[in-house]
C-alpha cells in the first residue's frame, strides 16, 4: 500500500492531462480542478497522519537512476503547504483568470505543476529531486508566458536559460558526487560522511556547484534577475512561483543537499558555508534595497521575495539547530505571507486595473478587507511580535548568535527596517491618502478572491500565536541532523 504516496503526485498531473484532452467548459473545468486539489490535500493529510516511514521505488533503472519517493517530516510539511496553498490559489485563479479562451492549457500546466512540486517534496534521493526539478522548469514555463506577448516570451526565455543553467551546474555536482559516493539517497546527516574523506577542496567544489545551481531557483544573488522578469506572469502564477512552487523548491532542494546529502559537518570542514554566507547576506540586503526603489507593486514584492529567501538560506549556511528551525519556519511563513500580499496586489490589478504605487492612493477605503489583510501580512513580514515573521526571525537571530556571528542579528534588524520601508508606503498610501472615506464606494473583490485572502491573513496571525506544533515537527526532523 506504499503505492499511495505516488497518488498525490500523479493525481494533479493526470488531472492536468485530462483538461488538455477533454477540454471542458468553464464550469466543468472549475469542478474538476477544485475537486482535484481538495482531494489531493486530503490525501496528503492522510499520508501525514497515517503513513509513517513509507517509501516507494517508481522505477529503478540502475544504481543511480532510481526514481524513489520517501516523504519524511520536512517533505510532508512542504507537501502540505503546497497542497493547501494550491487550493486557495485555484479559487483565486478561477476568478482572476475569468472566462477567457484557451484557459484549459493554462490550468493543465497549473495542475501539472502541483504534482511536480509535490514530487520534489516527496523525493527520496537526489536524482529524483533533479528529475522533478527539471520538470518543474518545463511545467512552469508555460505559466510564466501565459500572456503570450513578446515581453512575456522574453521573460520566459530568461527564466528557461537561468533554470537550465542552474540545473546543469547541479548535474555537474551530482555527477562528481556520485563518482565518489555511488549513492544519492537522502540520509539525515549526509552520505558523504560515511565514505572516506578525500580531498576537501573536491567537496568544496561540489558544494559550491550544488549551492549555486539550486540557488538559481532560490533567486540567490547574482542569479536572481529572472525572478523580477517573471512578474509578467498572471498574479496567481506569480504568487505560486514566489510562495511555494519555484523558489521554495529551490530552497527545499538546497536544504536536502546541505543536510541530507553532503552533511553539514562535511561542509563545515570545507568552510564552503562561510563563502555562501556572504552571498546570502548580500542577497538579504540587496533584495531589500532594490525593493524600495520599485514603483510597480508586483516588482516590489518580487525583490522583497529575494530578500526574504536570503533569510531562509541563513538557516542553510549557519549550522545550528535554531538556525535550521528558523529557516524552515520562515520557508513556511514566508509562503503564507507572500501569497497573501500577492493576492491583494492581484485583486487591485484585476478589479481596479492599478499596478503602480502612486495609483493606489485611497484604495484601502475602496477595498478595506483586502487592504486590511495586506496590512496584517505586511506586519507579519516585517516581523513585529507576536506575528509569525517574528518567530522565525527570532530563531534565525539566535542561531547566528550561537555561532558567534554577531552581524547576523544586525543584518536581520536592518533588513526588517528596510522591509518596513518598502511595505509601509503601500499601506499608508492605501489608507491615508486620496479622497475621504465617505466619498468612496466600497467594492471588494468577488468571494472567490476575497475568501482566500482573508483566510490566509487569519492563518498568518494564527501561526504567529501558535507556532509550537510546527516547531515540534521541525524539531523532530532537526534532532536527526544535529
Amino acid at each position, binding site marked *: 500500500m506504499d503505492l499511495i504516496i505516488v497518488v498525490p503526485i500523479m493525481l494533479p498531473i493526470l488531472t492536468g492531462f485530462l483538461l488538455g484532452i477533454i477540454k471542458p467548459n468553464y464550469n466543468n473545468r472549475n469542478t474538476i480542478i477544485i475537486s482535484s486539489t481538495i482531494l489531493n490535500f486530503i490525501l496528503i493529510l492522510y499520508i501525514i497522519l497515517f503513513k509513517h516511514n513509507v517509501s516507494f521505488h517508481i522505477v529503478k533503472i540502475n544504481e543511480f537512476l532510481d526514481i524513489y519517493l520517501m516523504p519524511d517530516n520536512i517533505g510532508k510539511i512542504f507537501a502540505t503547504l503546497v497542497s493547501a496553498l494550491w487550493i486557495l490559489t485555484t479559487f483565486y485563479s478561477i476568478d482572476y483568470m475569468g472566462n477567457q479562451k484557451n484557459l484549459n492549457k493554462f490550468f493543465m500546466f497549473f495542475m501539472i505543476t502541483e504534482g511536480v512540486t509535490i514530487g520534489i517534496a516527496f523525493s527520496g534521493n537526489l536524482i529524483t529531486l533533479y528529475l522533478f526539478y527539471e520538470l518543474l522548469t518545463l511545467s512552469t514555463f508555460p505559466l510564466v508566458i501565459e500572456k503570450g506577448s513578446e515581453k512575456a516570451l522574453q521573460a520566459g526565455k530568461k527564466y528557461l536559460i537561468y533554470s537550465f543553467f542552474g540545473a546543469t551546474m547541479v548535474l*555537474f555536482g551530482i555527477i562528481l558526487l556520485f563518482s565518489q559516493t555511488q549513492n544519492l539517497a537522502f540520509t539525515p546527516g549526509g552520505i558523504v560522511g560515511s565514505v572516506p574523506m578525500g580531498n576537501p577542496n573536491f567537496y568544496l567544489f561540489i558544494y559550491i556547484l550544488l549551492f549555486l545551481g539550486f540557488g538559481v531557483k532560490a533567486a540567490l544573488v547574482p542569479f536572481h534577475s529572472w525572478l523580477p522578469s517573471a512578474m509578467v506572469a498572471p498574479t496567481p502564477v506569480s504568487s505560486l512561483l514566489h510562495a511555494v512552487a519555484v523558489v521554495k523548491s529551490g530552497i527545499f532542494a538546497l536544504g536536502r543537499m546541505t543536510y541530507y546529502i553532503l552533511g553539514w559537518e562535511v561542509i563545515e570542514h570545507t568552510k564552503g558555508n562561510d563563502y555562501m554566507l556572504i552571498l546570502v547576506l548580500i542577497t538579504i540586503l540587496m533584495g531589500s534595497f532594490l525593493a524600495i526603489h520599485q514603483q510597480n507593486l508586483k516588482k516590489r514584492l518580487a525583490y522583497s521575495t529575494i530578500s526574504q529567501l536570503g533569510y531562509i538560506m541563513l538557516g542553510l549556511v549557519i549550522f545550528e539547530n535554531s538556525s535550521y528551525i528558523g529557516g524552515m519556519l520562515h520557508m513556511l511563513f514566508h509562503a503564507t505571507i507572500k501569497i497573501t500580499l500577492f493576492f491583494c496586489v492581484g485583486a487591485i490589478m484585476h478589479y481596479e486595473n492599478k499596478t503602480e504605487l502612486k495609483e493606489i492612493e485611497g484604495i484601502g477605503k475602496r477595498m478595506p478587507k483586502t487592504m486590511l489583510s495586506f496590512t496584517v501580512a505586511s506586519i507579519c513580514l516585517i516581523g513585529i511580535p507576536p506575528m509569525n515573521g517574528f518567530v522565525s526571525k527570532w530563531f534565525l537571530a539566535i542561531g547566528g548568535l550561537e555561532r558567534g556571528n554577531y552581524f547576523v542579528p544586525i543584518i536581520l534588524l536592518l533588513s526588517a527596517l528596510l522591509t518596513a520601508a518598502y511595505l509601509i508606503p503601500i499601506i499608508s498610501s492605501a489608507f491615508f491618502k486620496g479622497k475621504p472615506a465617505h466619498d468612496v464606494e466600497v467594492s471588494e473583490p468577488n468571494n472567490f478572491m476575497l475568501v482566500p485572502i482573508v483566510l490566509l491573513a487569519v492563518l498568518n496571525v494564527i501561526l504567529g500565536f501558535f507556532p509550537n506544533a510546527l516547531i515540534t515537527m521541525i524539531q523532530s526532523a532537526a534532532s536527526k541532523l544535529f
Partner: protein
Amino acid sequence: MIKFIPLINILILILFSFIILITKKEKNVKLMSFASNIITFLLSILLLTRVLLEDFIVLNLGKNNSLLGIQFYIGSSEAVISLTFTFVMLMILWFSNSSVKKEVSEIRISFFYILINILLASLLGVIYSNDLFNSYVFIEVSTLSACGLIILKDKKENIKATVKYLIMSTIGSGLVLMAIAYIYSITGHLNITNINEVIVSSYQSHQNAVLIILGLFTVGLGIKSAVFPLHSWLPDAHSSAPTPASAALSALVIKVYVFMLIKILFRMFTYEIVNSFIIMDIILLLGSMGMIFGSIMAIFQKELKRMIAYSSVAQMGYIVFGIGLGTISGTAIATYHIIGHAVTKSSLFLISGLMIEKTSSKKIEDLKGIGREMPITLGLFTLGAFSMVGIPILPGFISKWYLSLACIEVGRVPLILIILASSLLNVLYYFPIIINGFFGNENLDGKIYKSKKIELSRLIPIFFLVLSIILVGAFSSKLINLF
C-alpha cells in the same frame, strides 16, 4: 541454422531488391520491400536472443582463415545494433509508404525501395563483417546507395549535395583502402581477429606504420561518419534528401562507419596499443569540438532539416568523444549512444518531414504556431528534443551521465564541462521551435486548431520510434552492460 542469419539477412535484402527491379506495380514494390525488411527485423530478434545465450557467433564463408574468406562476427553490440537498425529502417519504410510519393517522382519510387534495401544490406554487412576487405566492399556499396537516395529528388541542390558527398566519401574510402593495404603488408592478414594476434606481438617494431594506419582509418572513417571538421558534406546531403532517406542517412548510415572505427581501434588493435598513441587524444579533441561547434552551428540554421543535420554532427561528437576516452566504459557508452541517437534522430527527421510537408516551408520561422495546428506531431517532437537536451531517463541524459562518469574514471574532470555545455546548447536550438510552436499570441494568431492534423495512421511509425526512445532509456543499464 541461426548461425546463418547474418548471411540470410543480407541476401534476402539484396534478393528482394532484384525482385523489386522487375516488379511493375507500385503496390507490389512496397509490399516486397516491406516484407524483406520485416523478415530481417524478425531474424535480427532471433539473432539477438541467440547471441545473448552464446555471447557471440562466428560464421565463416569460404575456407577457414583463408586470405579472402568472408567472416562474420556477431557479438552482443553487433546484434543489438543490427536489431536497432532493422527496426528503425522498418519504421522509416512504414512512414515512407504514404510520404515518399510527395517528394520522389513516380517513376523513381521503385528505385527508392531498391536503394533502401541495398543500403540496409550493406550497413548490416559492415556491422557483421569481421574482415577488412569485406567491410570495405560493403562500405562502398553503402556510400553509393546513400548517394542514390540523396539524388532521387533530382533538384539542383540535391545534385550539388550528392557530388560533394561522393567526392568527400571517395576520399574517405581511399584512405581506408590505403590503411587496409598497409595493415595487410605488415601483418599479412585481412581478418580482424588474425590481425589482432599478429599486431599485439609485433606493433612495437612498427610504431610509425601503426600510427599512420590509425590516422588513415580515423580520418577515412571520420569523413564518412561526419566527425567534426570533416562534416561539411553532411548538412547539404542530409537536408536535401527526401525525408525518409534523411532519417536513414542521419540515424543509421553515419553510425556504421564509426562503429567500424570502434571495431578497428579496440578489437583489431587493443586499448593498450591505441592508448599508447597520440591518436586517442586527437579523437577526443575532435569529439569535443564536434559537440560544441556542431551545436553552435545548429543554432544559426534557418532551415529545420539543416538544423537537425547539424545536431547530428554534434551527436556524432558524443560518440567520438566516448571512443576517444579509450576505455571500455567509454566505448560502451559510445555504442549506447549509437543506438539512442539512431532512434531519436530518425523520429526527429520524420517529424520534421511531416511539418515541412504540411507548412510547405523548410524555414524554422514558418513553424511558429505549429503546435496549435499539429499538436500531436509537435508533442512527439518535444519528446525527442527532451532526449537531446537530457531530461532524466531519456537516452540523451543517460549518455551524458555515463560519459561524465567515464571522464571521471580516467581523471579528466574538466571534460565534463564540454558535455554539459553541449547539452545546454541543445536547449538553445530545440526549445525555440517548441516554444514558438506552442506558445505566444503572435505565433498562434490565426492558426486553427488541428487544421494541419496528420492522419493517425501516418503517425504510428513515429509513435513506435518515440516509444523506443523511452525504452532505450528505460533499459539503458541492461544495454550498457551488454557492450
